[in-house]
């Protein structure tokens, strides 16, 4: 056994841990966080498994920089472009925060696609994780909508005409298209309210939806665990190994040695 701790040391430790114990006793949050951070994952996870966390990080960067940009941005047609100029050229470190938000938006979208590709190629969307794939697809669509609404906000020629084209593409959807376009514009023509409408969507409604969906997505990741790579020898998680066979859809190289090692001879 380890050395006995001195009474003083023990006392100090208790005092230091007291706030955490207080929180844990009343909320269970500390245990929950510990479970989240130290949960078991398959031994042969690799760097590709970090794409999801990278996407989450990119989203958090967008969240923080977006909130700060909102302190200086003025969402009305007369002032929007000037306020962007002001942020970029006058406000201290404005160029950096705006740059992070602008380029981070592309990083977020690219990472979403890479993460999606990883999940697809590893077959990680299969039973029992189909629902998380569906939530991920919703996240992708919502994220793209966030990109669309954000693109108008600098309110320069590119932003304006790109949005006109995007709205009119929506307008060509059969039956509902024309109504969808009017809903996005806030009327039959682009007017003074269109920019404010996009701003509200971009910074309140869609981020709210994204946060909700991400919460569900993470909940399912924690509940169902992380998949092994398809070439893995290891069974994911504890308990009896999953039935061999088609579950992995031919992504596994045939392994004769598995027969020797795994199955009892008859």
């Amino acid at each position, binding site marked *: 056994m380890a050395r006995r701790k001195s009474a003083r040391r023990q006392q100090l430790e208790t005092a230091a841990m007291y706030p955490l114990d207080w929180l844990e006793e009343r909320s269970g949050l500390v245990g929950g966080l510990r479970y989240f951070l130290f949960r078991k994952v398959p031994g042969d996870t690799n760097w590709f498994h970090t794409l999801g966390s990278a996407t989450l990080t990119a989203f958090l960067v967008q969240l923080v920089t977006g909130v700060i940009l909102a302190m200086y941005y003025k969402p009305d047609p*007369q002032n929007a472009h000037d306020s962007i100029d002001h942020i970029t050229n006058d406000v201290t470190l404005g160029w950096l925060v705006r740059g992070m938000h602008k380029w981070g938006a592309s990083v977020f979208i690219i990472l979403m696609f890479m993460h999606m590709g990883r999940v697809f190629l590893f077959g990680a969307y299969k039973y029992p994780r189909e629902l998380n794939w569906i939530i991920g697809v919703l996240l992708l669509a919502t994220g793209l909508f966030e990109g669309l609404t954000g693109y108008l906000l600098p309110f320069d020629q590119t932003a304006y*005409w790109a949005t*006109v*084209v995007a709205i009119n593409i929506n307008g*060509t959807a059969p039956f509902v298209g*024309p109504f969808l376009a009017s809903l996005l514009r806030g009327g*039959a023509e682009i007017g*003074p309210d269109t920019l404010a409408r996009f701003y509200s969507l971009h910074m309140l409604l869609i981020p709210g939806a994204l946060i909700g969906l991400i919460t569900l997505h993470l909940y399912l990741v924690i509940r169902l665990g992380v998949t092994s790579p398809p070439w893995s020898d290891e069974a994911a998680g504890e308990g009896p190994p999953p039935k061999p066979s088609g579950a992995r859809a031919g992504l596994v190289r045939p392994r004769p040695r598995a027969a020797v090692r795994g199955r009892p001879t008859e």
Partner: protein
Amino acid sequence: MDDPRGDMERHQPPPSLWPVAFAVGIVCLLVGLIVSWIVAAVGAAISVVFGFLWARDVVAAGRGEVPPEPVPAQVDDGPDTLEPEPAERFPRSVFLEASTLGLGAVIGGIATVPALGFAVLPAFLKQHSPEIDIGPINDFPQGQYVVATFLRNPSEGEISRRTAYIRNNGTVNGAPSFTCISNRCAHLGCPVQPGGPVFDSKKQMVKTKNGEVDLIPMLPAAGFICPCHGGAYDQEGNRTAGPPVRALDRYRFLIRDGHLILAGTYSVASVSGSGAQAKIHLYETTGPGQHVDGPEAWLYPVQPPH
């Protein structure tokens, strides 16, 4: 292991009304500080008295002097509940559950429906095309195209700036005729440009009820061309190349007190003939990229109000 509840029960204070009275005293005291010192004094007295009573209770509970709560009498009739009884058809619990859910839904609806309507309906109601005065018809030389730039709705400011290509066709049976083409591309709504010289040096600015209108003579020899995706149109607005699905939209016009007035747009499938003799196949205003004739038009049976 210890029963965890044992520990919890020791921490639990006995039910007491003293904190409520204490809080009332504090409120009295704070209101009194603003209103009058008498109220403040009464509040202070209430707080002190009930604060003392509360503290005494808490201290007594800490010493374990509080008698245990009387045990509810129903606890003992466990065996009775095991007897199979005919289920109540409309038990109170079901009623309470339904009424809670129902009331919640009603309250939620009252809060949500107006907000949703506020977000959605303004996009579809009170949509109208304002009449746009773009100046005396004498400013439009016969047979020549002019770029007219104007505010569709001056109260909305620059965001409502629009452009039309206007040609005076002379008179037909004594009535003046104009071709007023909207510059909104019938593909996806970019601004089409004249395919030919624009004579900026001959620019005129006309003061009208709609503020300043710019008129610039031009010669769209190659018709109109869209910079976004290469849609091309002839001088009557007929599509000649590229992705557009129909001809360019046009403005209705009328003449009042010698002024040319644009009054809303309509969509055009195609135009045969030209100038004053043109035969226009017109439809109600339709968004860019949407067919107005042929089988593809069946995809867009209803248009939102314009």
